[in-house]
């Protein structure tokens, strides 16, 4: 193959890796928004906590990859439910701004709490034997393959859960109408807790994969990645699960391409300008439905 094509394939592979991590986090944002119409600004920090759980499981417990991933997802899911119960549930009928501010506060709390306990960046030990294959000039690492396919697998499972199971039906029903759904015998609080658990669990999985791909973690890593995932969710149409996945791969692609052709410091600039333009031009995202406001 010519050098040009090899370069492009390499970049596409990198974009897929970044995009799948964004997608896992974006799903949490979009699910919570779909059900509660609330932006869970603490979600990026749940991702960060996931990375730290991964560090603890790998070093203190000395676990291998699969149990680490499972434990991290469980821990993050639990954290998500606890946050929802303690901080968001009491505000469900309060003005929307209160919930947003509370979410910002929870996020800052998680960051600074972690910082107080772990003041220095941590190094994740390599949990997987990293093999690099050379496919016609394109170097593919086993880690990349695992990240991409595991994320895709999780996304397919989630899509199935949301669109084909009773729990998923209940979730979609709640996002459709909050007044009458409880009258149909649907336990709203339980379903909301499950939503937070799934979203946070996926963020935990993303944290593990991110920590393996970029093995130095610090308490503030969740801010930027979280915002990027959030942009993905908005680009795809917030509240729409498939939209979030599409948005994440678009953003991952844009970022990798910008970094490939410009100085990498322009990445954030391009990402946020994209967000700004999109909101002004098409506020409901690629797959979202425009919401009609009645007077």
């Amino acid at each position, binding site marked *: 193959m010519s050098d040009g094509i090899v370069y492009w394939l390499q970049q596409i592979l990198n974009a897929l890796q970044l995009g799948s991590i964004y997608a896992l986090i974006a799903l949490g944002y979009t699910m919570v928004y779909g059900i509660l119409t609330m932006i869970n600004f603490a979600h990026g920090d749940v991702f960060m906590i996931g990375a730290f759980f991964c560090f603890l499981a790998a070093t203190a417990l000395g676990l291998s990859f699969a149990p680490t991933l499972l434990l991290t997802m469980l821990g993050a899911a639990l954290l998500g439910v606890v946050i929802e119960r303690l901080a968001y549930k009491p505000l469900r009928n*309060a003005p929307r701004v209160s919930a947003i501010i509370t979410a910002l*506060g929870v996020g800052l*709390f998680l960051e600074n709490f972690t910082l107080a306990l772990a003041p220095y960046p941590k190094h994740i030990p390599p949990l997987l034997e990293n093999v690099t294959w050379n496919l016609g000039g394109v170097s593919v690492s086993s880690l990349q393959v695992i990240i991409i396919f595991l994320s895709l697998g999780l996304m397919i499972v989630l899509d199935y859960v949301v669109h084909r199971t009773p729990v998923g039906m209940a979730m979609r029903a709640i996002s459709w109408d909050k007044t009458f759904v409880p009258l149909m015998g649907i336990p709203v609080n339980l379903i909301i807790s499950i939503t937070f658990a799934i979203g946070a669990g996926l963020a935990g999985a993303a944290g593990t994969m991110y920590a393996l791909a970029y093995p130095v973690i610090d308490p503030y890593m969740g801010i930027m990645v979280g915002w990027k995932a959030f942009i993905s969710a908005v680009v795809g149409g917030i509240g729409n699960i498939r939209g979030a996945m599409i948005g994440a791969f678009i953003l991952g692609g844009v970022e990798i391409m910008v970094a490939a052709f410009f100085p990498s410091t322009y990445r954030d600039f391009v990402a946020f300008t994209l967000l700004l333009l999109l909101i*002004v031009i098409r*506020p409901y995202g690629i797959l979202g439905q425009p919401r009609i406001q009645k007077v």
Partner: protein
Amino acid sequence: MSAMLRNHWDGLLEQRWLLPVLLAIGFVLAFAIPEYNLLNKYVQLVLMYVGINIILAVSLNLVNGYMGEFSLAHAGFMAVGAYTAALLTMKVLPIAAYPGLFPLAVLAGGLAAAFMGLIVAVPSFKVRGDYLAIITLAFLMIVKSVIENIDYIGGPRGIPGIKRLTTLPWVFFWVVVSVWAVRNFVYSKYGRGVLSIREDEIASDLMSVNTRRVKFLAFMTSSFFAGIAGALFAHLLQFISPRVFDIIKTTDILIMVYLGGIASIGGSILGATLYTGLMEILRPSTVAGLLSWLPEMIFDPLNEYFIRHLGVWRMVIMPLLLVLVMLYWPRGMMGLREFRGFIPRRDREAHHRLKTLEKQGTP
């Protein structure tokens, strides 16, 4: 007794000499404190930070409290003001020869930020609520990213060695100007428009409120004072970098506004003072200084296990405080209320008449 005191107090508020006298005392103090070192240097510094934070909180309250939007861009406007003013004093204006040019630089910082406020105001015509919050956030990130990418202004390293030109009288002056401007704006015709937009934008449009002009004015006023505060901040800290003006700075200002209470100038002043004071008091050195009278037997273990670690833990206490305020005290200290002194005379009289009518039982 309390009724008598209250009447006396109201009578005092009605006196026309009260405001000029208070202002004069304030200015004399602002000049005298640094001149004769009435307070130690550290307290003077904290006072100046309190003043800057009051400007920030009062101006953010205009958009977030009175207009009911959720702007996260305040630190971005602050950055624009800070960089504009710092570049002017360092590279353009001959400050060394004419230190009197400093107010010009501050004013330019405010105007540059107000211009940026226009850019945020335009999308606010179409988008509201969560999405406007996202737009303001994107603006903040873009400002930060642009500054990081311009090497001429130091890029991510920032600008060190800014002259310390911010003084207590200047901070006091700008606090007075910002409180005066925001208060008069809120109680003007446009201010009523701002309040009506918070309650219902469509309805206020129907009532022939020019919502676009009102939004322009509100965003520009708010960002102007954020820029002023940024310029003062830069010439007090003597070092600015993009990292100083990130989302955490915005969150600080949000905490001051919501702790003090939305739609209340008095609340913002209280919130900014209390929050800044609390953050300073929780510093390990301050706590150690305050508790140093304790016998060594108690002080040493306290210092070992508690005070020494406050430096990090106060950053944990701060967001926890915000969450607790939101959960148990959603209106903050003065939410939707106001000190009587800040309410214009005609409004106070109308309010008073309403109260007496209510007492008499006639609607």
